[in-house]
């Protein structure tokens, strides 16, 4: 295995004598008296070994023998909710959940007892709008030969018993009702609708009607057709060697046959064209949950790296501008952040916070002040250097976790990124300039078509939000009021 030495921070100016941060921030100028080591940290970038089974399954193995545990993640990249029939929203998700509810030789109860008795985890999950179903498997080395065959049985031989589906459906119907009490769910529901429009990712949850329409026959068909080895990647990290595990995989997965199914690319997403302001009226709310943003880029975009740095400056954590302004300076909130989602298809940049109802107006003003500032002004060099150092250093430290290194290897594989992508990642981040940040901010943080969602007390916040565009009000059940 090739071992690289990654020299951190080789070309970043150390900003220990930084000038004062911008006046709008709640923080003071640094005193620069704390002892900071200038020594260059050497971090190894371990490599995952790539193997293939005859059925087309790609296997990525990252050996790490520090702990006697093995974790596996199976990305079934043809079983994403993106490919669900439109009237069966939730099919990918319930099929994944039903895997544990009985196989041809085990009952739901036996599976639950065995998994817990072995101190293992075997779970499958498919999010709405996702390109795949993920199966996460974890266990101790010492009882691998007990939990691994169980996981394979759950993957390959689910029975989809009708009585278990009847029970699971009832549990999920209660869940659909309960999730509407959460302001976070309500804001996410409307925000995804707003930014994704007619794309399947606009829908974040099944409905009672779609659950009722899903049958065990539909699940069996979905499982037969969509759980295909040739479109899947199995990542393994931990206390294994390729030589030990490959024969076991070949034998256990021999019954999993290759098919002709190919995954089509995701349909493209474009930013919402018209500015929109959406309020979800949640009676009794004492805070306003604000989410705003629009579609930006997919993971393969050349603008990914500059946007990562821009996000770190704007709202990536408790040292970024949004947090310093809305919390540390104004005291409007417990936290204010921004984030970027970039996957197979373009996802949104977004900024969010929960603020007490009375300061909704001030919070909106400060969000827009920060959006305008990062668009209109070049990020001061000391601030930019600090944020780039932060991204690079966190990346380097994350390499200590085998699961994250495996995650990086899967990302590279899935998006077809260059072989040396992660080797050069710190250098790519370091090369981002203030001009790059301003360019991507102007390009993606467009304010004339921004989508704004506010969950709270509509009577109180409507006059504030009307200043940002035409307001549409929904109730907590998702109906226009």
């Amino acid at each position, binding site marked *: 295995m090739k071992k690289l030495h990654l020299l951190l921070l080789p070309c970043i100016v150390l900003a220990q004598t930084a000038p004062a941060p911008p006046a709008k921030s*709640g923080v003071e100028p640094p005193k620069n008296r704390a002892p900071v080591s200038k020594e260059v940290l050497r971090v190894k970038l371990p490599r995952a070994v790539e193997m293939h089974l005859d059925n087309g399954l790609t296997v990525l193995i990252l050996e790490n023998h520090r*702990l006697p545990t093995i974790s596996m993640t199976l990305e079934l990249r043809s079983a994403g909710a993106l490919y669900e029939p439109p009237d069966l929203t939730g099919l990918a998700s319930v099929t994944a959940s039903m895997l544990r509810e009985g196989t041809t030789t085990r009952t739901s109860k036996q599976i639950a007892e065995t998994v817990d008795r072995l101190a293992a985890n075997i779970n499958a999950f498919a999010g709405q709008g996702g390109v795949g179903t993920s199966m996460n498997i974890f266990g101790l080395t010492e009882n691998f030969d007990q939990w691994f065959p169980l996981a394979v049985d759950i993957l390959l031989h689910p029975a989809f018993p009708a009585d278990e589906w009847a029970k699971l459906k009832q549990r999920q119907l209660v869940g659909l009702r309960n999730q509407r*009490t959460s302001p976070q769910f309500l804001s996410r529901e409307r925000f995804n609708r707003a930014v994704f429009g007619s794309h399947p990712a606009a829908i974040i949850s099944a409905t009672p009607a779609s659950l009722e329409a899903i049958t065990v026959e539909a699940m069996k068909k979905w499982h037969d057709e969509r759980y295909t080895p040739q479109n899947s990647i199995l990542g393994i990290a931990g206390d294994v060697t390729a030589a030990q595990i490959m024969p076991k995989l070949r034998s256990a997965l021999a019954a999993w046959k290759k098919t002709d199914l190919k995954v089509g690319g995701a349909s493209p997403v474009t930013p919402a064209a018209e500015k929109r302001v959406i309020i979800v009226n949640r009676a009794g709310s*004492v805070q306003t949950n604000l989410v705003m943003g629009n579609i930006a880029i997919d993971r393969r975009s050349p603008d990914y790296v500059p946007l990562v740095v821009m996000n770190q400056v704007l709202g990536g954590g408790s040292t970024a501008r949004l947090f310093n302004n809305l919390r540390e300076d104004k005291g409007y909130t417990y936290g204010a952040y921004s984030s970027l989602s970039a996957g197979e298809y373009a996802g949104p940049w977004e900024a969010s916070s929960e603020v007490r109802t009375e300061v909704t107006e001030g919070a909106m003003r400060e969000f827009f002040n920060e959006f305008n500032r990062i668009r209109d002004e070049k990020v001061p060099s000391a601030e930019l250097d600090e944020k780039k150092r932060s991204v*690079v*250093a966190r990346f380097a*430290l994350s390499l200590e976790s085998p699961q994250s290194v495996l995650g990086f290897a899967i990302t590279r594989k899935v998006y077809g990124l260059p072989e040396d992508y992660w080797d050069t990642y710190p250098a790519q981040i370091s090369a981002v300039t203030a001009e790059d940040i301003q360019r991507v901010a102007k390009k993606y943080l467009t304010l004339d078509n921004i989508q704004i969602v506010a969950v709270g007390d509509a009577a109180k916040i409507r006059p504030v939000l009307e200043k940002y565009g035409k307001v549409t009000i929904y109730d907590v059940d998702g109906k226009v009021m």
Partner: protein
Amino acid sequence: MKKSIFLAIAVAFLASAADPAIPFKLFKLKNGLTVILSEDHSAPTYSIALSYNVGSRDEKSGRTGFAHLFEHMMFQGSENVAKGEHPSLISTNGGSLNGTTDNDRTLYYETLPANQLDLGLFLEADRMRSLNVNQANLDNQRNAVQEERRLRIDNQPYGPTYLAVEETAYDAFGYKHSVIGSMEDLNAASLDDVQEFFKRYYAPNNAVIAIVGDFKTDEALAKVKKYFEAIPSQPAPPRPDLSQPAQKAERRKTLEDAFAQLPRIDIAYRIPDGLSPDYYALRVMSQILGGGQSSRLYQRLVRDEEVAAGSGAYADQRRGPGLEQIFVTIRPGKDPAAVEKAVYEEIGKLQTTPVEDWELEKIRTNAHRAQIQSAQSTLGRAAALADETTNFGDPNLVNLTYQKMAAVTKADIQRVAKQYLTEENRTVIVTLPKKAAAPAQPKQ
């Protein structure tokens, strides 16, 4: 300097040779600071966990929420560190940090690359020695904490329920009120309170620092002395009296919740402190009753009878008297009283019938796994070492959890279920969805 106590701890008790014990060395500085160092060279990182022996248990009436508000003040700067500089230095160097307050203690922590040991120690020592507080920062953090309360309690379904359980089950004031505190008390907190609290509780003799990771013990100890040993000690703070008369009869309250869609029942039994021999039997019992999909409550109420949407049970581990807490959210149209009765039937089975072999095996394998996985992160180990020392006076307790869990017998479970899970020892909070749209949350 020469007076530091050196204790090499033998860790040969473990049930399985494969279980990695956490080795450590324990020291005490001249100013009373307890120092725990645990070398681990498997990754070039380290974590500091600094625990102050003060929690909401120490708060006075009229000043609830103060320990946690004070935790926020610790990020507002000190003599040699500007407001915002501490998080910025940690982040720029790839690390992470935070603070957390519970009923019994307040914990601050950092994870950093191994070559930045001086940085982490300097930042913690500077604020222990010379915290900088002013009215503007207090007002600002009071706002942030009040938003935290709204975010977690006042704007969420069942928020008031969480507070009602402790308020009703406890008589001792220290545990009767919430960590987050009341809005009124937070408003009343003054700059004088902050300064007084800092002087009283944030002294080296009231703190434990645990450091785990890639360093040499003698070098790390020298650095800890360099940064901390000149900080003067203070008189030992007074400790609250958490004793309370035995409960004589069931306590019951019904709340209406404007945000909740489903009724919910919370049942709390008074149990002994977390160091008591019975505590681990109760913890094992809780996992059998309510831990995960194979648990008895889930299998019966959620899966088979389909009367509940969710369920759980856990034994709260506290320095003082704890609570065995059980909750069930109830499906629409189902009778909360019938579900409550079913919970008591399950408790009755624990009292009268030995648990099954596979249930005990599940407890043991999961405790074994937890022990193995504790070696994954330096932060988890540092926090556990600091917490066990602050709460129970013995860092080696981190290495004994597995044995304590594995030693619990079927007879132990029956005995503690009979002794503690009784009608007169319980508090029941029933939360019902409020039908009409309500303007505000129930006041507590």
